[in-house]
């Protein structure tokens, strides 16, 4: 398999910029720290010197296409990992950007790493991280730790659902397969709890929420022109912070709003500064939809009718759904 490197991607970007296919590149650049990689827009070949690509480049660029395709008369180059392509298709299903204005390059992915797992091994004070065969961490205490990538893979990569790209104009390297994933194991654990235990679990997790809105801002399904939580005319606007029970409502309402549209890309949990496992809420919905209406993967095809916005005479009746639990 062709190894995807930073230089390969930059070379691709430069050639597409130079032959006029695109006039804008969505990519990653370094933030404050090595592990603090942020999405960036590159307008010319020169600026691509800041382009980085390593095991921290988890950000899903599909959502960025909504605003950036409006800014160009030409095309936007976007690099998409397999999981990103599902969000890409879902946004196309919802008519959120113009496909003609995108040049999508699929890039194979062998998983991204989770800085919190690295820190748990290396300890605090990380000064430098080098991604390679192994992940080499140097600390400000002059210690160097070598870590196996497999030990620090992000949760969503450990339970990766697909290495297959469902959308691209051009694919670098070889495409993978849809995987048998154990992503519902955690959901099953929650389901096996009593109602009280489960309430306590979510109370514990969600009470840490500081309402920074990072999950909403990063979520490729949260693309409303105006979010209901920002709209004073909406009846839920003041429902999310009134008391210790209602503070959970933000996440529950959000999970309902993305139900059937969430591709399980895992960005919500990746960006949460409070480490709330938000993806579990969405996965519970996905699992229920699979159970009740047959397997459905949002974003697998453009224009597919998600079970929740489709009616067939075979649909199960509300009573059956409760029994089928």
């Amino acid at each position, binding site marked *: 398999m062709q190894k995807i490197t930073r230089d390969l991607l930059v070379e691709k970007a430069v050639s597409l910029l130079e032959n006029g296919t695109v006039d804008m590149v969505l990519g990653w650049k370094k933030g404050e720290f090595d592990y603090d990689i942020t999405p960036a827009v590159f307008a010319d070949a020169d600026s691509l010197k800041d382009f980085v690509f390593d095991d921290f480049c988890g950000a899903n660029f599909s959502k960025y296409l909504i605003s950036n395709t409006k800014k160009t008369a030409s095309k936007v180059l976007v690099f998409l990992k397999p999981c990103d392509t599902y969000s890409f298709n879902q946004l196309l*299903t919802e*008519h959120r950007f113009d496909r003609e204005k995108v040049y999508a390059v699929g890039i194979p992915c062998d998983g991204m790493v989770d800085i919190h797992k690295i820190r748990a091994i290396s300890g605090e004070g990380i000064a430098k991280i080098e991604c390679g065969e192994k992940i080499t961490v140097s600390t400000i205490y002059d210690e160097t730790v070598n870590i196996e990538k497999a030990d620090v893979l992000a949760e969503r990569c450990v339970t990766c659902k697909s290495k297959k790209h469902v959308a691209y104009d051009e694919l670098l390297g070889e495409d993978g397969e849809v995987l048998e994933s154990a992503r519902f194991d955690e959901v099953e654990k929650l389901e096996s709890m009593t109602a009280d235990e489960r309430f306590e679990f979510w109370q514990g997790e969600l009470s840490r929420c500081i309402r920074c809105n990072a999950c909403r801002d990063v979520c490729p399904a949260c693309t*409303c*022109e105006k979010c209901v939580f920002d*709209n004073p005319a*909406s009846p839920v606007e003041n429902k999310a912070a009134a008391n210790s029970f209602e503070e959970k409502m933000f996440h529950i309402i959000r999970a309902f709003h993305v139900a059937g549209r969430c591709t399980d890309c895992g960005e919500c949990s990746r960006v949460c500064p409070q480490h709330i496992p938000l993806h579990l809420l969405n996965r519970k919905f996905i699992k229920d939809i699979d159970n009740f209406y047959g397997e459905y993967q949002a974003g697998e095809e453009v224009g597919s009718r998600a079970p929740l916005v489709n009616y067939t005479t075979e649909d199960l009746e509300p009573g059956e759904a409760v029994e089928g639990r």
Partner: protein
Amino acid sequence: MQRIGVFVCWCGSNIAGTVDVQAVSEALKNEPGVVFSANYQYMCSQAGQNMIIDAVKEHNLTGIVVCSCSPRMHEATFRKTAATAGLNPYMVEIANIREQCSWVHKDMLTGTEKAIILGKAAVAKVNLNTPLVAGETPVTKRALVIGGGIAGIQTALDIAEAGFPVDIVETKPTIGGKMAQLDKTFPTLDCAACILTPKMVDVAQNENIRIFSYSEVTEVKGFVGNFDVTVKKKARYVNEDICTGCGACVEKCPMKKVPNEFNLGMDNRSAIYIPFAQAVPKVATIDPNHCNMLKNGRCGVCSKVCAAGAIDYKQQDEYIQEKYGAIVVATGFNPISMDKFDEYAYNQSKDVITSLEFERLTNAAGPTAGKLLRPSDLKHPHTIVFVQCVGSRCASCAEKGKEYCSKICCMYTAKHAMLTRDKYPDTEVYVFYIDVRTPGKSFDEFYRRAVEEYGVHYIKGMVGKVFPEGDKLKVQASDLLNNKQLHIDADLVVLAAAIEPDKSARPLATMLTASMDTNDFFTEAHPKLRPVESPTAGVFLSGTCQGPKDIPETVSQASAAAAKVVSLLVKDKLKGNPCVASSDELMCNGCSSCERVCPYGAITYEDKEFRMPNRTVAIRRVAKVNPAVCQGCGCCTVVCPSGAMDLRGFANRQIIAEVDAICK
């Protein structure tokens, strides 16, 4: 701020018996916006309505809450009252403290508490109500009748008589339905064909009626006054306009071994066939499953003998689109399958038959030319056992039967028994029954005659088992009145099979968005006061699709449905429902979710220019609702992630305000 008046109804003792109405009107006085609160014995009466009108004027009310029965009962009444008082009718909210409160509570304390809470919710909603104005839509002056049995025929004739065009869609090659298969009809014993076929001819000759036979409805769009319907005319491989119904093709067709469905498979027909002599339209139909020409191209006899040249082996299904103002469902019934009733040996012996098969055996146009001969050996049966309630009133055997009473079996069994004894006095006739139910004009007299004058042995008790032995059918039964076990050697056993709605009814109900009960009978808008209307506006019910009925009842209901259709079609315009969805285009994402869930196809999208900061313009895809098509079901408001889609009169804010008032 609204000025709200609260009016609490006693409904005689219906509400006041379990709800302290005085306490309710006192408690609601203190709710935000309420400036007047009173209670009265019958709010819907003239005096009650005047009380509301006077209060509106005296207290300058802007909104009204009536705590009374279900809004399905009197919402329209109180909206009219509000309009008389000069208020917008949509400033009225009903708090249902009868069906959802006084009737379900036994205890005054809890009943009163709940009534107050429901009243508070209604007040909270009225505080957010806005005046709404209904639009108008034109009415297409044509009716569609689905089903060409006696119900559909009568409805179509009555509508046509009033001067409106009607189309009948019938799945079979002929109209006539089940009644065409019957022999005589109770309680007057006139022959079914003699009274039905003239009506069928009337239908064929009526200039206002078109018959789509061998056809089915495949798609229904639109709404009351403006339905768009697609009818599939199945290929019958015979040009209907040219065929004269001479029957030469039927006679010459070499493929004569096709079970004849009109005689319930008790004899055979040819592959090209006319169901019966008086069929309307009298046109031949080729059965593609049995025609050799259609199956393998080897035959073509019918084409050669047809003098009119009507045979067309290349005919295709045809789809016809038509607009209608009203739709009448008259899809009828079928006897249930006897496959699961092994105890009666229906599948083991040809001499165990259903009552409908018995009708064919005694019908002059039937397989035995009207002679009562048993199917196995064509001998005259000397002992006949009739079993009532096979699959009817069968609460304990829901997996094979029906819980309800099929209503017609007692009477037709009395008829069968009486006619048998009349024509063949040497025949012993036994009828096993749970009860004999004969409410109807001249019905009980009819049944008494069967017992007293014709000597039919009516035995209260059920048949436990029937099994063939030699050329007899051994019948084991219990006689409950004499507390005896009976063993009868019968020659023929006739099962009064329960009836069930036709299988086409369920998918049709889905297309029409008309509701059904658990037995797949169509639900009426009100069981007593609106029995021929479906809750879906513009859809009417005729005959057994709504529940088991005999012919007199079916015909009455068919005419009633026609009267309702006519009173709709005479209107030039219909006032729409202003409680429809609308989209706030500034918030709409154009995601198409609402369009996908809309059952009425009321939502479309358009690309719209929006002024953005710095004198720029953005083009966004936004949803648009056609208010004439929208029925206000609210599905779109539920799927809309941004809350751009909202329902007038049932806005998200109003609903949440109600919930908040209840949970406070």
